[in-house]
């Protein structure tokens, strides 16, 4: 089975300007996330963020068939945003992507900014804020919450694919008319897998440890203040 890992941009695919400019929003988002996670110096957040990053890395090994012998795999930005809140999720995703670049040479060092933006920041902010904004509008029901989570997960994958396409096209590597439909076509399916996994995962967390879902109880203003202190529980 051929795996679609094409979202990791390697070195050399982006023009110098595009690669350099992508670092700006990526580092800004990570800086805000780091500030939010230290806002109240809740120290246990450091290991929590570390294990969440390790979890996302491992969960990306869960692959599912798409079509024609290809498979996609779980990306996790949406789930991270739901569990950690949008900005802190940016930090966790940036850690995952940096480990992939430095430990496995997966994704270029110069494209690290672009990869963090496409696979982490865009999805995490989109899903995180979507969940927070819609929470007050919709009836407080499990079904509505899960529906938004699923839609957000699909949108996050599509937005990341679109951003990748635009970066490649602006870099004059591929024409937009070729890369955008191709990327969006494949990722419409990858996104469905992402949505199904995210909904099932969020549903199961809601059933077992609803206290771990950051975007459920925090208001926009409190965002990033606290992640509940976990109770020791047997694994």
């Amino acid at each position: 089975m051929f795996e679609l890992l094409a979202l990791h941009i390697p070195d050399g695919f982006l023009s110098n300007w595009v690669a350099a400019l992508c670092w700006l929003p990526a580092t800004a988002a990570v800086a805000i996330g780091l500030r939010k996670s230290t806002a109240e110096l809740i120290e246990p957040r450091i290991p929590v963020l570390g294990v969440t990053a390790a979890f996302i890395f491992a969960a990306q090994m869960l692959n599912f068939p798409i079509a024609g012998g290809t498979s996609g795999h779980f990306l996790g930005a949406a789930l991270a945003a739901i569990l950690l809140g949008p900005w802190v999720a940016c930090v966790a995703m940036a850690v995952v992507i940096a480990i992939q670049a430095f430990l496995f040479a997966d994704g270029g060092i110069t494209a690290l900014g672009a990869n963090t933006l496409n696979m982490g920041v865009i999805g995490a902010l989109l899903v995180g804020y979507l969940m927070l904004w819609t929470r007050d509008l919709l009836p407080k029901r499990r079904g509505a919450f899960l529906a938004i989570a699923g839609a957000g997960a699909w949108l996050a994958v599509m937005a990341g694919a679109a951003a990748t396409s635009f970066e490649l096209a602006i870099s004059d590597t591929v024409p937009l008319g070729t890369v955008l439909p191709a990327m969006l076509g494949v990722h419409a399916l990858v996104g469905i897998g992402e949505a199904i996994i995210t909904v099932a995962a969020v549903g199961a967390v809601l059933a077992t440890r609803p206290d771990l879902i950051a975007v459920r109880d925090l208001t926009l203003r409190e965002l990033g203040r606290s992640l509940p202190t976990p109770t020791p529980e047997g694994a």
Partner: protein
Amino acid sequence: MSVGCNHMLELTGLAGDPASAIHRLDPRAKLMGLIGVTVVAVSAPFSAWPVWIVCACVLAAVAGTARIRPRVVWRRARVILPLVIFAAVFLPFVRPGGETIEIGPFTMTTAGLETFAGVSAKATIGVVGAVLLGATTTFPSVLRGLEALRVPRLFVLIAAFAYRYLFVVVDEVQRMRAALASRAYRPRNLRHAGALGRVATALFLRTYARGERVYLAMLSRGYAGSMPQLEPLSFARADAVFLALVVGTLVPARVLIGAAV
């Protein structure tokens, strides 16, 4: 379910002669060297072949000094490079510009071929450079180097925790995949992906509980926000010589040759 990922973590860690001059360098020197090679290779215009050859020679010299056999580099690069080349191989057919070449039913362009060759060369240098850094430097050293190079300390701490848990969490996910397979889980279409969501949750809850247990254990053993470092980083003369050699080779090549083509 593919098994390709099983080998991924085995293909990390030190390789070659751990006592070599390269292995003993300060991680900052090696990180700056890697960034230097990559930035020079990536920033060069397409058709700047001499620059890439110089970059490749620098990488080969590093690998030779560290006694890393080509086979090791190849085995590690093989995980990533085919995907990169696969993505790039479409370029000659979709990128307009230059003369066109007819190959059967397909039309290639010379501009596209040039982009394909350039992109492949840059990506290969990037991947091999990162592989060499990983083969000569432990990941905790890389993190210490990044911290010394002003990457925020909190980010480095989180990455260090992530790395510490990575292997157990990956083991856990492998056991879960084996459990799925032994219960005849063979997803044939997207509708079967839901089970993976529940696996992801079980994985998350176990990881979370484990992280909490380990953290409390660390606190009870005196952890106060940073790991004790037995050997402080020191940027010695060997590091300065290494960087001077790398930069002294690359920058003139980039400026002189890169500008000429």
